[in-house]
Structure formats: structure tokens, C-alpha cells
């Protein structure tokens, strides 16, 4: 994954970048499988590696640009921001409990109840499903609404007015969908 990330920085060919992002997602999916989060891995492989790559390629076909133009502006400012953010994040991980630590707070809040009671209360063998669909029903409803809103946004921005302002509509649609998804999470 680190190699993919580094290659991201130096590559200018957009097609290769889209493919790299698919590779990154696939590696992430493998990582999730290793960490026993099969449901998450499934989603990552289907959405991140599959649909996102196809959508990226479709966008490339739409805008018809194969290479990113090298920016002339100084990279020092953004680099500093990234460096500080990274340092803060790494500093935060030092306080996190070790992976698989049974004393971690996450294993003591509501998780024991889900594990012990969901078989009796919900009766679904896959606890992930019972948590997502039943205990956390509101959240999932919100996620579905986000997807609905994203599709509606794409429809409104790109569906009809394709002939008038292709560039403006396209950019707005991407940002709108990303913004919706970000806000919900």
C-alpha cells in the first residue's frame, strides 16, 4: 500500500492513477481479510476496486485528459500541512490500544451485549448484519439516503443539462456526491 501511495505522487498519467487506486483498494481489501473483517473487505473490493475504478475510467473518457499538468506553484505549504497532519495522526495512534487488546474500550462498551444477546434477540448468525440492520438501523437508513441523494445529485447535475455546461456540471456533481458521503460519515 505504501508503494502504491508513493507511486501516486510521482505518476502523471491519469489512467495509471485510476488503476493504482483500484490496486490500493484491492490491497486494502486483502488487509481487511487478514484482520478478519470480511464484510468490510467485501465492500472495499466491490466498491473501491470495482465500481470506483470503472467510474474513474468513465470520468477519464468524459473529460478526455490523459495527463495531469505539472503544477507550477510551490509545494512547500501543502507539504507542511500534510506533514503536520501526519505527525498528529501518528501521535494519536500511540494512545490507541493494541490491535486485538481485550481491554480496549471498544470491546467493553456495547460489543459484549451484541455478541451475547444478538443470537437470542435477532437470531441472525452473522452479527455484523444484525448490528448493521437492526441495532444500528438508523445509521444504515442514513447511509442509504446518502446514496440516494448522491444519485439524485448526479441525475440533477448531469442527467439533463449535458448539452449546456458540461465542465461546470461535472465538477459540481463530483464534489456534491463526495461532500454528501463525507458529511454522513
Amino acid at each position, binding site marked *: 500500500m505504501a508503494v502504491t501511495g508513493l507511486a501516486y505522487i510521482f505518476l502523471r498519467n491519469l489512467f495509471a492513477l485510476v488503476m493504482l487506486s483500484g490496486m490500493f483498494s484491492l490491497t486494502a481489501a486483502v488487509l481487511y481479510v487478514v484482520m478478519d473483517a*470480511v*464484510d468490510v*473487505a*467485501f*465492500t472495499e473490493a*466491490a*466498491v473501491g476496486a*470495482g*465500481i470506483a475504478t*470503472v*467510474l474513474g475510467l*468513465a*470520468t477519464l*473518457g*468524459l473529460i478526455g485528459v490523459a495527463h495531469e499538468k505539472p503544477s507550477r506553484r510551490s509545494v512547500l505549504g501543502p507539504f507542511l500541512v500534510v506533514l503536520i497532519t501526519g505527525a498528529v495522526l501518528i501521535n494519536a495512534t500511540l494512545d490507541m490500544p493494541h490491535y486485538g487488546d481485550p481491554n480496549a474500550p471498544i470491546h467493553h462498551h456495547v460489543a459484549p451485549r451484541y455478541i451475547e444477546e444478538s443470537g*437470542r*434477540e*435477532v*437470531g*441472525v*448468525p*452473522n452479527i*455484523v*448484519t*444484525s448490528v*448493521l*440492520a*437492526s441495532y444500528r*438501523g*438508523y445509521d*444504515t*437508513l442514513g*447511509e*442509504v*439516503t446518502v*446514496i*440516494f441523494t*448522491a*444519485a*439524485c445529485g*448526479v*441525475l440533477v447535475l*448531469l*442527467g439533463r443539462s*449535458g*448539452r449546456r455546461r*458540461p465542465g461546470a456540471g461535472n465538477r459540481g456533481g463530483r464534489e456534491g456526491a463526495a461532500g454528501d458521503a463525507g458529511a454522513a460519515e
Partner: protein
Amino acid sequence: MRHKAVLRVSSKLLIPPIMLFALYVQFHGDFGPGGGFQAGVIFASAFILYALVFGVSRARRVVPAGVTRATLALGVLLYAGVGVAGLLLGGNYLNYSVLAPDPVQGQHLGIMLIEFGVGMTVASAMITIFFIFAGRDRDEGDG
């Protein structure tokens, strides 16, 4: 895409198993990994594969715009409607235990229905977004 015989034949072979696998993931989500979201994406990918190989306009004839838009909204409505049904039957919003005489059975029914709603919305959202992205190309070429 008229001459890519290998692509056409292999995608024709692949599309039915993809759809079957999507349905399996959809309804087997209670027992193994998976659920409405993943199933919706896989189901949509079958249509996207068809559109990639045979062209968006032919794929649009299989699933017209009206159908995907209707199912897009129907999925969310189904999900929210299950919640309202729980309300009407005397429980809290999105409490499935009251949907059937036996609470566990009610949970099963509720989860199946909402997962189906999720799958519908996700599949039609993905199909809609892809068709719009890929279809604009052609529109501009024509106009």
C-alpha cells in the same frame, strides 16, 4: 465493439453468474459476509459490464431510465416504510420485533426487507451514476 467476439461471449457467460451471486449475497447476508450494499454493487456491476461491452444505449434498453429511477426511490421508501410499519404496529421506529408474532421472526423479516431496500437503492444508484457518466460521451458525440 462489433468485432470483440471473445469479450462479448465471455461477458454473456459471466453476467448470469454475477447476478446470481448478487442475489446469493443479498439473501445469504444473514449467514455469511454480505448484505444489501454489497449485493447492490455486484448486481449493478453486471449491468455495467453489459454496458461496457455492448454500449450504453443497448444497456439502457434493458433497464430504462425510468425503472432505475423508480427503484432508486423505492428502495429508500421500502426501508423507511418498514420503520413506519413498526411504528403502526406499536413499536419504535425501525423496531422489527413487532412485525411478526414472534420477535425473532419479526427481526428476520425486517432485516430481509430493509436489506432488500438497501440492495435496490444501491444497485440503481450505481447503474444510474455509471450510465449518466458513460452516456454523456455519446450524447455529445451525437449533438
